[in-house]
């Protein structure tokens, strides 16, 4: 199968997955408790006004009509049958609707939060890969030694530590007690740094990048710890598996230096399954950053999701979930494509 056909096939599969997610998200809205009209209206308004608002929101329509308008709105970017309470105008735009609480575009709000979440997910991945792979290699090449036990202990602790607890501890110790990092928030994002760079403010851009790093360090460690532990374990077991194979003995018998055998041949082969896991985990991190974002007041999709759930702002909840799902699907397609390119033994089948 050619690369083009492979991509088309995966994209079509992705469309069905996203459609499934959209359907589930719609179903969640239907079965979830809490009437959006109660969020929008003061408690003592009359039933007529309440009914009018429910009608304006399209919530008095049969479910299949609401579903059709919802799905077609997302697919085609046409009004979804929802109305902006403030203006009385039908909702249009990019198909994700308008926030019930702020009256602004969901697509624009979600789009603005996405870079923060992506930055966090990517930095957590970088932290994980930079720490985990060397640690896994050291652990595997020094089997049953002190470094191996240390790495194993670290992995166990990392996998079993809940990240909300870890985040709070990091804040208390490294930010409040030792004053090494800020406790929370995001002073500037990568788009801001790029803006400065493009406008020629090089010193400000460098300072912006340093500030960004300073703010993202603790959240990235918090989000990446579980991942780090996982990759360490994978690297260690993968290395051990590869080290026992005959090509390693053959290489050594040919007189190749041990370091060359380990890092050029063994590690390279070990990395193939790790790339898959890293890719999949990156997708998971985009959706899984909710708690970390909450603890660190990081203005990403997770914050948007929690705030909108609390306020029953369903268009915003739906928009956030759909963007997370699409992100996951896209990352998966990219990883699968890369995997087949990195490992020629796997074809585009």
């Amino acid at each position, binding site marked *: 199968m050619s690369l083009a056909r492979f991509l088309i096939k995966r994209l079509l599969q992705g469309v069905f997955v996203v459609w499934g997610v959209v359907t589930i998200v719609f179903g969640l809205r239907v079965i979830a408790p809490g009437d959006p009209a109660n969020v929008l209206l003061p*408690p003592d308004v009359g039933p007529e006004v309440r009914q009018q608002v429910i009608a304006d929101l399209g919530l008095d329509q049969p479910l299949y009509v609401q579903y059709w308008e919802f799905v077609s709105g997302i697919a085609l970017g046409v009004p979804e049958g929802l109305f902006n309470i403030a203006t009385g105008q039908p909702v249009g735009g990019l198909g994700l609707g308008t926030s019930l609480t702020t009256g602004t575009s969901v697509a624009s709000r979600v789009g603005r939060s996405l870079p923060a979440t992506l930055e966090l997910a990517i930095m957590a991945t970088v932290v994980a890969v930079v720490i985990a792979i060397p640690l896994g290699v050291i652990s595997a090449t020094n089997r049953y030694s002190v470094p191996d036990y240390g790495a194993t202990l670290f992995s166990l602790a990392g996998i079993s530590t809940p990240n909300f607890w870890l985040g709070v501890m990091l804040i208390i110790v490294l930010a409040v007690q030792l004053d090494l990092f800020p406790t929370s928030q995001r002073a500037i994002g990568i788009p801001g740094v790029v803006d400065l760079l493009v406008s020629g403010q090089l010193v400000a851009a460098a300072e912006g990048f340093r500030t960004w790093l300073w703010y993202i360090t603790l959240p990235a460690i918090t989000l990446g710890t579980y991942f780090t532990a996982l990759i360490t374990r994978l690297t260690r077991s993968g290395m051990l598996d590869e080290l026992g194979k005959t090509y390693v003995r053959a290489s050594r018998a040919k007189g190749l230096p041990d370091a060359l055998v380990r890092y050029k041949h063994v590690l390279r082969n070990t990395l193939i399954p790790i790339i898959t896991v890293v890719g999949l985990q990156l997708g998971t991190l985009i959706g899984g950053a909710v708690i970390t974002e909450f603890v660190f007041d990081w203005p990403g999709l997770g914050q948007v999701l929690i705030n909108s759930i609390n306020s029953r702002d369903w268009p915003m909840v739906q928009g956030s979930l759909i963007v997370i799902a699409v992100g996951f699907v896209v990352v998966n397609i990219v990883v699968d494509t890369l995997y087949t390119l990195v490992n020629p033994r796997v074809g585009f089948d």
Partner: protein
Amino acid sequence: MPENGTNRRGFLKYAGGAAVTASLAGCLGGGDGGDGTDTPEGTDTDGTDDGGGDGTDTDDDMELPDFPVTITQGNMPSGLDPHDHRETPTDVVMLHVYEGLITRDAAGAVQPALATDWSRVEGEEAAQFQLREGVTFHNGDTLVGEDAAHSINRIVDEEVGFASPQSDQLAGVTGASAPDETTVQVTLDGLNPIVFSEFATYCDIMQRSWVEDRSKSEIGQTMNGTGPFKLDSYTQDEQVVMTRYEDYWDDPAEVSELTFTSAAESSTRVNQLLQGETDIIVNVPPQEVNRVNNSDAGSVAAAPSTRIIYNAMRYDVEPFSSKQFRQAMNYAIDLESIVSNVLGGFGTQTGQPTLPEFVGHNDDVGPYSYDPDEAERLVDESGHAGVEIELNTPVGRYLKDLEIAQAVAGYIDELPNVSASVNQRDFGSLVDELLTGNIEDKPPWYLIGWGEATFEGALVMTALLSTDGALTSWSNDEFDSLLETAANSTGEERIAALEEANALANEEAPWIFLNQQYSVYGVSSRVSWEPRSDERIDAYAMSQA
């Protein structure tokens, strides 16, 4: 503030806010540059110098201090349109830029603001406000009667603007007009004894032409008021930055730059305060109080709020249909212990639906005493011995709500003739049941809180206990009649009716009376500020410690 890195505020200044933030809605446009009023000397743009009512224009040569302050709430404002929201966090942001005709001081007393005089119009169902002269909007234009009238109409009349969610906050107001440049006449649909209470709490004044020149969406993204601070930048859901308005009609604020941020997680807010990243935080949980007070960074300051927490008992279902049983529930709980142990002292015991600071509070009525023997006797007398009851409570909505509910149910469960348990509920679904307008949809016994910023006991009792109240759980003809009397009278007669209604509520015990919730703030040691009962965090009242 940490010295070893660039802080958020510092960085934004350094890099230039517009380049850094993605969606700044911008500084106030137009007139800012052209009004020639960027001097602290207090010369008004129209040449008048009437002293702004209090005769407190900025002293000549006075150097205004550089004193930036950051306030961190649990949520960011839902938008910047002062007439399109119902939330306290949004209100706290608004009050720094927009002002009402009249206002309240920290004790809740009505005070002049943009109006210097107000009165009822003889022989008419109307009220009149006399505007302060020489007040300017942040774009440099002078406040006139048309602006105030349009603002009132924008709230109460859908045809003028939009369906404002605040229309009920000006209940009884049907419209407004401006007979001349400094007078606003408000028409009422009856006597409306609380009209000035309503205006002291609600109705921010906007500039008519500014509003009419902008779309609804633009109005929600920028600000142009008359208050002591003017908008500098706004990043939706992230921060609002304001700067001191030096041509304010009263003394300019001591705070030079005011930033609003939010952190939903209480421990995050506490950590920000301890690290010096913010100056005022809201809702410090009782378990964090010592951590704040033991630090050098700040301390905890608390004030009784306008919110009452109570357990409603539906009068139409057994066993709560029995007055003896309802009274027994009040005698069964040790409210003093709940306030001191569960709430860490951050609460006041109640024994009537009206809080002490409110109009109509009956000083002769106290909380029920803790008397489990009397409770047991009353339960037996009610004929409901052996009953099992379940308390429905939201979780995390009010300060220690679940813990209060568990304590209440625990005390009642200790009675030998009643079994009580707690049912934790999602707030949204509980509120759905309370708001259907049908008493049968409500749970028989539930914990809920109610805030009333107007300081009017009548509004609390009407909404929560009158037969037709939006959230009522009770019906009593005598009580309804007393509220009716209060609604159609003023002065002493009205107060007496409300006090009698409170005494009756205490006797009939439609609720288990619980606590007045406190607003608990963390305040940086660099800021001097006293919290208020009405949950307003007023940076204008802040000074350097």
